[in-house]
């Protein structure tokens, strides 16, 4: 989005200007009811839950050790094809490793990277947005210029450049994706703070002598979180794809850890002969990202339809 365009001058639907406070009990019930009405969102929540359960329980579900190499069982096709084995439902790769087990274990890395990176960038961005919106003036100008500067880099390019200097590895990937993504939160939170700052309850809190910190924590912050959740849902999806891309290029997670990105990169040479090497990890990633996007869409409709173009 350009920094200050005229694109936001469109009218919003009346009656939906209040962003709901997610703390109240009845809000949860309202959320569940709205969720039940959206078939795609229910499917999204279901798929994501399955992926989370699989990731947590990988050690119990996976039929094989994901790194176990059985060279005489190299490039076995999936079980339902000629030459397939029931022991390897989705086949094996060029080193005889079980594709199903590796795909199952890969979900761990994707989710871990996605969620950790989003927590880091969320915390950074929320803090920056609160300061910028609440204190205004120099703080705001400085922070928003920083946002502009970082937005001038494509996300993956910035991640690549920092990884290139720091070196690859799981920890660095999480850190880099976390640091590279804070701007969107800062921008959204600042916008929310600007509108909350002038409300009566903030004035009232100030009148009874509440400190800035208390006002921000008790009155401003809770009212900024709804859009943050929307942004975060889409960001988890982006981070999962970016991690896989970095790993695919050999600049991401260590080769010893099974990940969807490394499976795709390994299988690339066998695409013409052994399609299952790249198909299953790719499908797993697509389904996960699709689920997150669907949930994000529903959250956006539920929380604030005006944010459609976010």
């Amino acid at each position, binding site marked *: 989005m350009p920094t200050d365009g005229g694109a936001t001058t469109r009218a919003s639907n009346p009656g939906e200007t209040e962003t709901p406070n997610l703390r109240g009990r009845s809000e949860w019930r309202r959320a569940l009811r709205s969720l039940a009405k959206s078939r795609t969102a229910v499917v999204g929540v279901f798929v994501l839950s399955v992926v989370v359960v699989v990731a947590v329980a990988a050690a119990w579900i996976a039929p094989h050790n994901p790194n176990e190499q059985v060279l005489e069982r190299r490039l076995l096709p999936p079980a339902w094809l000629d030459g397939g084995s029931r022991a390897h439902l989705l086949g094996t790769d060029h080193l005889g490793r079980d594709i199903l087990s590796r795909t199952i274990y890969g979900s761990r890395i994707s989710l871990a990277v996605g969620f950790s990176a989003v927590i880091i960038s969320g915390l950074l961005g929320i803090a920056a947005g609160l300061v910028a919106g609440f204190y205004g003036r120099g703080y705001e100008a400085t922070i928003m210029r920083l946002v502009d500067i*970082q937005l001038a*880099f494509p996300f993956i390019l910035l991640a690549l450049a920092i990884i290139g200097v720091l070196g690859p590895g799981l920890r660095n990937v999480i850190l880099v994706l976390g640091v590279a993504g804070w701007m969107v939160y800062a921008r959204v939170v600042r916008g929310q703070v600007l509108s909350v700052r002038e409300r009566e309850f903030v004035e009232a809190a100030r009148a009874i002598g509440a400190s800035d910190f208390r006002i921000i924590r008790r009155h401003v912050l809770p009212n900024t979180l709804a859009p943050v959740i929307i942004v975060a849902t889409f960001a988890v999806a982006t981070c999962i794809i970016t991690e896989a891309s970095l790993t695919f290029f050999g600049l991401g997670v260590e080769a010893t850890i099974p990940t969807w990105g490394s499976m795709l990169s390994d299988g690339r040479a066998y695409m013409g002969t052994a399609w299952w090497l790249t198909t299953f990890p790719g499908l797993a990633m697509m389904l996960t990202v699709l689920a997150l996007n669907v949930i994000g869409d529903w959250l956006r409709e539920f929380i604030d339809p005006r944010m459609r173009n976010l």
Partner: protein
Amino acid sequence: MLRYILARFLQSTVVILGVLLLVFFIVNLTGDPVRIMLPPEANQEDVERLRVQMGLDRPLPVQFVRFIAGAVRGDFGESLRYRGQPALKQVIQRFPATLTLAAVTLAWSLPAALLLGTIAAVRHNSIIDNLATVLALLGQSLPSFWLGLILILVFAEQWNILPSSGYGGPWHVLLPALTLGAFFMARNTRLVRSGMREVLEQDYIRTARAKGLAERIVVVRHAIKNMAIPVVTMIGLDIGQLLGGAVVTETVFAWPGIGRLAIDSILHRDFPVLEADVFFIALAFVGINLIVDLLYTWLDPRVRVR
């Protein structure tokens, strides 16, 4: 009006300076850039020679001023991989490839998105609408390198009708442009659809219908015109991102653009080229944003009054 333009120019300059600072900071992040630039087996003598050669033996603020002074003149030093070649020249040589890919990508994905998004909005909840929604979701959820691999598998390996990678004849651009455009088409279809639906609920549309205009005329004459601003925003965003080089797509298809140059220069530890590349991409992005913002003032007089 003039003041607004000047202010935006000034703002962009500040952003560019900030970009340079960030690039400088990233490369100096680990303390000793010379150590990262040289292979691990380099001896102390090599390290010292390169350090002096690059002026890295001087204090950091001095280095930064020298870096900025060089950057303003387009001088990022020499490529470490191709000795004697200026770093920026490498970037500029690669730019036409990126530009070609961007143009072909936009040329198919933008009209497709405009058409599909508009039809989906006008025929709300129809088969086309549902199809557009599914396509858009899929396009946004497919990792582009995976889509690229699948397209290579189908079109180059199985059917053998298109080249799988490289740069040359007009056929080479098709698969990368298809891969890259899938995401842009998906996102833009959604933007057009939701924007159009909002426009169609406005009072002036009801008025147009009430006075008996055919639906086709209502859409073409009244609705589409009011989509101009969001669509310009959208195109600006697309061009900015496309000129930034599609790092992933260019690499998968061995397309010699500036996005792949970024990966190459990281893999070969060619940091002057990386700096020049990143700077060039940021410059393109800021430039496009500036143009889009100035376009608003022409398209939407309300912006001028602020």
